């Protein structure tokens, strides 16, 4: 409880509560972090659910072998060191000694192998893709894990952050129905914080894990994640100090400017490098007129992406140049540029024969609004006005999450908006959107727009197995140029979500996954 809240309570007439004041004196040791979780996660076991709130909260409870710095270089996690064989096929990890689960049982190489090769293979689609490349996983001793790959896979070392490969206790999950395991409620991990209480609809209360293997960590005594579904209420909570930290879209973009001015708050957009959320308007390449490259290019000309950034995202983004985010490895900005030009767009449309009809309209196109909040809604409204300038009617179609997922997954849409994480390496987060082998009906976040180019397929495949970074860069540069010319989707922005935290907090953002991190090093003065 901070002073502001304390004062408020006094003013409002409730009796003073003699608590928290003495505890705050301990400086770097101790203290409570109040923050927000939005929306409320369905479960805290990150191995079973990979929605963003689950990962944010579960990141404090579950750990993996590695962490990644802001430059996406690996750093020690539960593995204190690692080694890659010259042929790029064998990865050996040395674990820290004395790691224990929250139930007191030791964490060993067996738990790592069980988690990666058994449990995650079934429950974690992304991990499944990664560990399917493993030929064998062995534990020569309790503190050593060896993965042998079937063929080289350059980004394999990028698969061990706590969101991609969380380690769960084998003794709890082995031979059980993972999803229905009653211990899921207890969320037993190895992280610096453990679950104390979860009052659904209200808050999740984490407290320090006293048996944590790193000396002096964690510094905080407890973290409270409050569920506040209403955006205005979240802003108010940050403003009056009820919470000391917000992340992702907790604070609406239009409020960012206001909070930047609030003296007690620190502002950063760092800590999203691993995700590098990349956004585009998805054009179903199978459906006319989106099946015509000229139409897709016209769309690129039609969207005033600076205005889009300013009006809809209030400047909290960077205009994207192509398929790879500038924050991701192997980015190359040296590609064709599409300036905002209604005339160029009209010329392209005329050229392809999409001229205004008897009613003055060139076409009527349906736009499926992703049901993930008001910003998506406004983005659709923005696009509708953009299309109106060349006399194309964009009809917004509302839907729910299930409807959106099914329609997009089954290619039953014309235009929609999408946002994908880049996951640090094009082979992990970018290729999936463009390679023809990933045109999979019914699967979301695959190549749903149905773009297919054998050359692009080849370049992505070669780049994935190449072990030399220079070689990879060359291949990825090529693929970026081709894609930007062909416009399989209309890239718009690299979103830069804000993180605000109270200046009393230190070491909040230290790695490429920002507030998803374990928070063992975070202190509060």
């Amino acid at each position: 409880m901070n002073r502001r809240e304390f004062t408020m309570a006094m003013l409002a007439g409730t009796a003073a509560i003699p608590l928290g004041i003495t505890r705050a004196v301990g400086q770097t040791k101790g203290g409570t972090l109040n923050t927000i979780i939005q929306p409320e996660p369905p479960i805290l076991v990150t191995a079973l659910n990979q929605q963003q709130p689950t990962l944010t909260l579960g990141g404090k409870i579950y750990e993996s072998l590695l962490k990644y710095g802001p430059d996406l270089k690996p750093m020690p996690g539960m593995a204190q060191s690692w080694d890659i064989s010259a042929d790029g096929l064998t990865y050996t990890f040395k674990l820290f000694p004395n790691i224990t689960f929250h139930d007191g049982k030791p964490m060993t190489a067996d738990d790592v192998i069980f988690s990666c090769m058994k449990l995650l293979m079934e429950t974690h689609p992304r991990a499944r893709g990664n560990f399917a490349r493993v030929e064998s996983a062995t534990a020569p001793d309790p503190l050593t894990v060896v993965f042998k790959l079937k063929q080289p896979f350059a980004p394999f070392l990028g698969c061990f952050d706590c969101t991609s490969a969380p380690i769960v206790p084998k003794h709890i999950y082995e031979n059980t129905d993972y999803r229905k395991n009653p211990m899921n409620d207890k969320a037993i991990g190895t992280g610096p914080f453990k679950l104390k209480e979860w009052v659904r609809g209200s808050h999740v209360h984490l407290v320090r894990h006293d048996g944590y293997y790193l000396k002096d960590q964690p510094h905080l005594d407890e973290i409270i994640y409050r569920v506040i579904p209403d955006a205005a209420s979240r802003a108010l909570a940050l403003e009056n100090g009820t919470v000391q930290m917000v992340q992702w879209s907790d604070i609406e973009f239009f409020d960012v400017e206001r909070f930047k001015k609030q003296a007690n708050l620190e502002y950063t957009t760092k800590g999203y490098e691993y995700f590098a959320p990349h956004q585009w308007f998805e054009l179903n390449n199978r459906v006319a007129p989106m099946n015509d490259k000229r139409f897709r290019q016209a769309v690129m000309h039609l969207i005033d992406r600076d205005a889009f950034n300013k009006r809809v995202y209030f400047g909290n983004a960077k205009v994207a140049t192509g398929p790879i985010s500038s924050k991701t490895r192997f980015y190359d900005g040296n590609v064709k540029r599409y300036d905002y030009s209604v005339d160029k767009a009209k010329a392209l449309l005329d050229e392809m024969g999409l001229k205004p009809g008897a009613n003055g309209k060139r076409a009527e196109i349906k736009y499926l609004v992703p049901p993930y909040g008001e910003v998506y809604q406004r983005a659709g409204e923005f696009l509708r006005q953009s299309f109106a300038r060349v006399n194309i009617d964009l009809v917004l179609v509302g839907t729910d999450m299930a409807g959106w997922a099914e329609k997009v997954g089954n290619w039953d849409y014309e235009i929609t908006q999408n946002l994908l994480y880049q996951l640090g390496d094009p082979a992990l987060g970018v290729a999936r959107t463009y390679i023809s082998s990933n045109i999979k009906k019914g699967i979301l976040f695959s190549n749903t727009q149905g773009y297919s180019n054998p050359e692009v397929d080849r370049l992505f495949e070669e780049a994935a197995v190449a072990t030399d970074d220079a070689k990879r860069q060359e291949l990825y540069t090529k693929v970026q140029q081709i894609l930007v010319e062909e416009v399989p989707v209309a890239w718009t922005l690299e979103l830069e979500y804000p993180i605000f935290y109270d200046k009393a907090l230190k070491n909040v953002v230290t790695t490429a996954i920002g507030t998803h991190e374990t928070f063992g090093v975070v202190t509060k003065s």
Partner: protein
Amino acid sequence: MKGAAAFGLAAATLLVRLVAVILLIATFNFILVRAAPGDPAQVMAGQSGASDPKILADLRQEYGLDKPYIVQLGTHLARVMTFDLGYSYRQRQPVLTLIGERLPATLLLTLTAFVLALVVGTTLGAAAGLAAGSVVDTIFTVLSLLLYATPVFWLGLMLVLVFSVTLGWLPPFGYETINVQMTPFQKVLDIGRHMIMPVISLAAIYLAIYARLMRSSIIEVSHQDFIKTARAKGLAGPQIVVGHMLRNALVPVVTVAGMQAGALVGGAVVIETVFAWPGLGRLTFDAVLQRDYPVLLGIFLILSVVVIFLNLATDLVYRLIDPRMTTGAA
């Protein structure tokens, strides 16, 4: 014992009725929800980034989504009758647990609003009805008409704007101050403070309804012959009001109040969204957006049962007020 037998019969009839209604609603809900487009397995798997037909198939298998609807319905009904409302595969919790966690907050909110609306509404309405035609009555009528025309969620927003944002008097959201040790008394006060605005927003429209109803009911009763009798007996104004008018005037209000119970529970959805109240309303909304079938089915069933019980409660109050409903003719 004739009385005991009659009571037993009545209780049995009631139980049969309740079960019948529950089964009907369960079937109705089931059909409604399954009519929805969208495959829950798809959403489940899709969220995490990439997916795999095998996982989808597993999910369908796990939740019986691949069986014919009639089988799913049969299973559903059988479960409902054993208080098993299914398992939420999105929330990883039994539905009953989920609902159980949220129901108290919703009940607290709706019942408080209900009682407040009833007590304050009828009091104000009675006052206005007794002073029919006066300035007070006119002011009251205008106010109640305004309240009646106000969207609940907007009223909630305006309250937040005034009392939280501008004045800073009341907490704008939530159910209680978290992570502070308090004496039970302080805790009650704290929850009370959090409740003020949601309860007022939710109660406002019903307060207006009951008040207007009570007003016309009082006027209606004041024209009844037995009021003339009371005057002819020499009773003074207040004695007539308390002894003869109020109870009679309450009868139609209580009837309507029972019928409004469902609407009140519905209104809680919006209010809980505005005030981040950790109740069933919010859960409903999230469940609809996520197509969390078992949760939706459960919520609808439970809320309908709540409404049935509220109806029953008002029915009992009604019987308490009006002896004609309970005693047979002599």
